[in-house]
């Protein structure tokens, strides 16, 4: 008798856990619904599939868009500088 009731208690526990999982899935629905739309959003990870060498590399090294912008700005400035110097030297 005792064995039976303990098994029942386990089943109840499992049922509760399943309910909790259900609820969690329902909640995930809502979030996923809104995340599935494109916008300036912090989306869930994009399709992984076979990760590029590049993707793996950049997963490990944190570079922000802002840092990259600065870098690009510097390169463009350097480019203009080089062209100007080269042009001036070419004149003389």
């Amino acid at each position, binding site marked *: 008798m005792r064995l039976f009731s303990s098994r029942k208690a386990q*089943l109840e526990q499992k049922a509760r856990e399943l309910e909790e999982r259900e609820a969690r899935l329902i909640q995930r629905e*809502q979030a996923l619904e809104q995340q599935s739309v494109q916008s300036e959003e912090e989306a869930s990870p994009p399709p992984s599939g076979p990760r590029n060498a590049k993707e793996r590399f950049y997963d490990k090294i944190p570079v922000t868009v802002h840092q990259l912008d600065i870098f690009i700005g510097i390169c463009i400035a350097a480019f203009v500088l080089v062209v100007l110097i080269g042009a001036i030297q070419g004149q003389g």
Partner: protein
Amino acid sequence: MSEYRLEMRNVVKTFPGVKALDHAQLRLRPGTVHALMGENGAGKSTLMKCMFGIYHMDEGEIFYEGQPVHIKDPLDALHHGIAMVHQELQPITERSIGENIYVGRYPLKQIGPVKIIDHKKMYEDAARVLEEVHMNFDPRAKLGSLSVSQMQLVEIAKAVSADCKVLILDEPTSSLTAGEVEALFTIVEELKSKGVAIVYISHKMDEILRISDEVTIMRDGQYIGTWAAKELTTDMIITKMVGRELVDLYPKRKNVPGEEVLQIEDFTSINPKSFRNVTFSVRKGEILGVAGLVGAQRTELMEGLFGLRCHSKGTITYKGEELKINRPADAIKKGIAMLTEDRRATGILGVLSIADNVSISSLNQYLIGGIMLDDKKIEQLVQDNVAKLSIKTPSSKTLIQSLSGGNQQKVLISRWLANNPDIFILDEPTRGIDVGAKYEIYCIIEELARQGKSIIMISSEMGELIGMSDRIMVMCDGRVTGFIDGDKANQENIMELATQFEAV
């Protein structure tokens, strides 16, 4: 000084095709628990993400202690004293618990000219924070070593450690056991007494009525009203949330299962821990539900049948013919279609148009002179499907990733229909889809079964399994534990079979 710690007024937020927030509002008093309720898609999470700086509002204002503020991003929100515990965890499992708690705001120390992370201080602080929330985890242990519910507790600790004035809890108890929920409530009470304003989003009526002081209800992105919790009952809340007549969740099933057409015998994965000795059959016009707990290897089994995974032994027989399936193209040629579990990862071709997504598996049918693609025919195909399945999209050239989950799923179904398969494997077909679209998909599934197609449907939602299946196959730990007839199925007998091999 305002009586409200935080106010959000007239918030509007639109995503392509959907108005997520339509003049929503919220007013939080310090030292109270304010519940935020509504159906899926009502806008609760969206509103909180606006508060926390994850989204930028199209219109609307936020006032913090009477002063207008603009919250640029989550770090900015944290500086204002707003912390958020998210619904879906984003744990960095490979790193320690301490690192997860302080991610993005590691304590730094100066060594010469360089600032580096002060690990000692981080772990000391982490230990203290964990103690405050009554958790005994070792902050140096890997986060991945914890169970899902423990990870959720760490998320909560993370938010609490930020020493916040406003705390947003978005479905915090979804993965917690009863004991852990009690611990959470103790923490909430402690925070209340410190004057923190707490927003509590949950679907669980009993929790809401127990812990909250005020309740705000939203519907379709709009603010419906705020009431004192003690004036509300469960029925009142539901009425206000739904605001319209509840309809049947599942369509009437008129499909009539016929003779057996598909037999799977002794199907075993090459991975000994995955599915093994699976034997079952499916009839014409039948919907076979597949139930089981997470980890039961249902998806793996179906992937094996479809050729995405290797099997070591077993046979697939369709209409008397044995099928050799080594890759998806083999299965597709024999008339099998599969809607995968994670459509973003393995379903949709996100950067391609709807027309491309619909036609990709059947391009051989639209050729001029054997080489050139007939764009007109493809366009016709897309329009036919848009009409047949009620797909909401501005045009066939729209990128599929800008569609809602339900519409994306319909595009995928169209893709498979173009090949006229006889067997459909659906893995969690309504995951991440709102209530209205779910019903439409159920109708599509029922229609397919009525036409004589065999449907295998994996689902983790009891209601869905019981409501839609003619028969249910239950799996546990990679093995089939039993079959239940649709009309005799209920939560208990499914659960019993689903946990047969779980450690007792």
